[in-house]
């Protein structure tokens, strides 16, 4: 019962057993939240560095709380005020942090593969907190855990991902992990935001959202990355809202107990209507809570290589 891994770079390379190990370890960490002392001494004396080259509030905070609840020392590197702006390379920054005896480096970068580069060059454990359009493994894990917690199964679960699949690392991590666990995954969104050949991953594509929401158990809504609007991938925000916003009206076609998820940050009134976001089907805040427990489990299960 161990991952026997130094790093968590993506869910693509984990097998079903690894995913089960992680998901099966989350509950004790979650139950720690309900105690009067929400802390365990598991990572006493370990140093966790959070190195984010892209903006983030919830993932950064979530990792920081997770590490602190395991009693690690946490250092946040604000890239905008670090040597990176003086031109230091990613590997050199990593080596510097390792020379300071960082045991875990949690990295977010706009380029896919950046965490892999660090993992290959450093003995610290590297956790990918989002790299380009590639993966966001801990978000994928917390999504799966939340689905499992609410629906009591993943095998045969019907999950629909809606929106910008092309640019979404959350979507990719979801697809890799869900298909491995035997869930049936479908995606829905404008054709320009659905990657070509996605069917090869065992995913069904629906361009009509009304059709797609029928019969699914979970709808995971992705953020429309408004900063990409200038690439002209859809004609207008208004048109997107008309065709792909998840509204109460559209949900009339769905199962009564359909689970509504969103990785955040939400654009209310764009990909999700406010009444859906606040409905009793939505588990968006529980995803945030589970995120901490999942990240604690990952920190616990990874094994940094220790130099003798």
């Amino acid at each position, binding site marked *: *019962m*161990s991952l*026997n891994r130094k790093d968590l770079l993506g869910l693509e390379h984990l097998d079903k057993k690894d995913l089960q190990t992680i998901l*099966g*370890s989350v*509950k*004790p960490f979650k*139950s*720690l939240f309900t*105690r*009067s*002392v929400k*802390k*365990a*001494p*598991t990572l006493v004396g370990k140093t966790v560095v959070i190195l984010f080259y892209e903006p983030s509030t919830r993932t950064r905070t979530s990792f920081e709380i997770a590490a602190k609840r*395991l009693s690690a020392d946490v250092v946040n590197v604000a890239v905008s005020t670090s040597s990176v702006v003086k031109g230091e390379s990613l590997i050199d920054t990593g080596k510097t942090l390792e020379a300071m005896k960082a045991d875990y480096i949690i990295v977010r970068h706009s380029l896919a593969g950046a965490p892999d580069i660090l993992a290959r060059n450093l003995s610290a454990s590297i956790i990918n907190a989002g790299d380009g359009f590639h993966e966001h493994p801990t978000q994928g894990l917390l999504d799966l855990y939340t689905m499992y917690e609410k629906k009591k199964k993943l095998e045969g679960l019907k999950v629909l991902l809606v929106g910008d699949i092309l640019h979404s690392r959350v979507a990719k991590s979801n697809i890799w992990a869900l298909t491995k666990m035997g869930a049936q995954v479908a995606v829905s969104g404008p054709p320009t935001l659905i990657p070509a050949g996605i069917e090869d991953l065992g995913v069904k594509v629906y361009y009509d959202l009304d059709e797609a929401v029928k019969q699914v158990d979970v709808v995971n809504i992705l953020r429309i990355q408004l900063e990409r609007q200038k690439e002209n991938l859809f004609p207008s925000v208004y048109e997107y809202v008309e065709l792909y916003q998840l509204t109460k009206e559209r949900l009339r076609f769905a199962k009564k107990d359909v689970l509504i998820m969103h990785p955040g940050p939400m654009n209310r009134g764009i990909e999700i209507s406010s009444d859906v976001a606040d409905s009793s089907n939505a588990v968006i805040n529980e995803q945030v809570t589970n995120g901490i427990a999942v990240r604690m489990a990952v920190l*616990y*299960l990874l*094994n940094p290589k*220790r130099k003798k």
Partner: protein
Amino acid sequence: MTEIILKAKQLQDKVSKLAKEIFENNKNIADLAIVGIQNKGVFLAKRIIFEIAKLANIKESQIPFGTLDITLYRDDLENLGSKMHIIKDTEIPFDMSRKNIVLIDDVLYTGRTVRAALDVLMSFGRPKSISLAVLVDRGFRELPIEPSYVGVKYESQKFIKVSCKESDEVDEVKIEI
């Protein structure tokens, strides 16, 4: 080679003895709570509760019962490598603040498990008191921890294995020699 220290009947007798002693020292039964350390301590704790409930003529459910997993509090996590334990449930479903807690474990040896268990308990609040009951005291303590209730004392540095019907089909205590 293994040698049997306790057979099924003897094991159950020791459990009854522990229950009787705990009951006699806790006449104010409303303040008593039992907490088992995962895994075997939990099975033993349930049996002890059953016996105490009989002695006190109350229902088992009237004795507050909790479980503890000490994995996250171990002092040797770093050396475990791939032998990492599956973390079991830690549940203290009652307010500890005015309880006399009796902690139950199968074998007491170095005292490190109990040290960790005390830390877990303290993270839930401030109990009135904590005492310790063990089925086997193996001696060779590395920390200043002593049990209040002992089923059998068997000093040895060899591994002692407790099997319980709940998980191993048989009740017995064996030592590898």
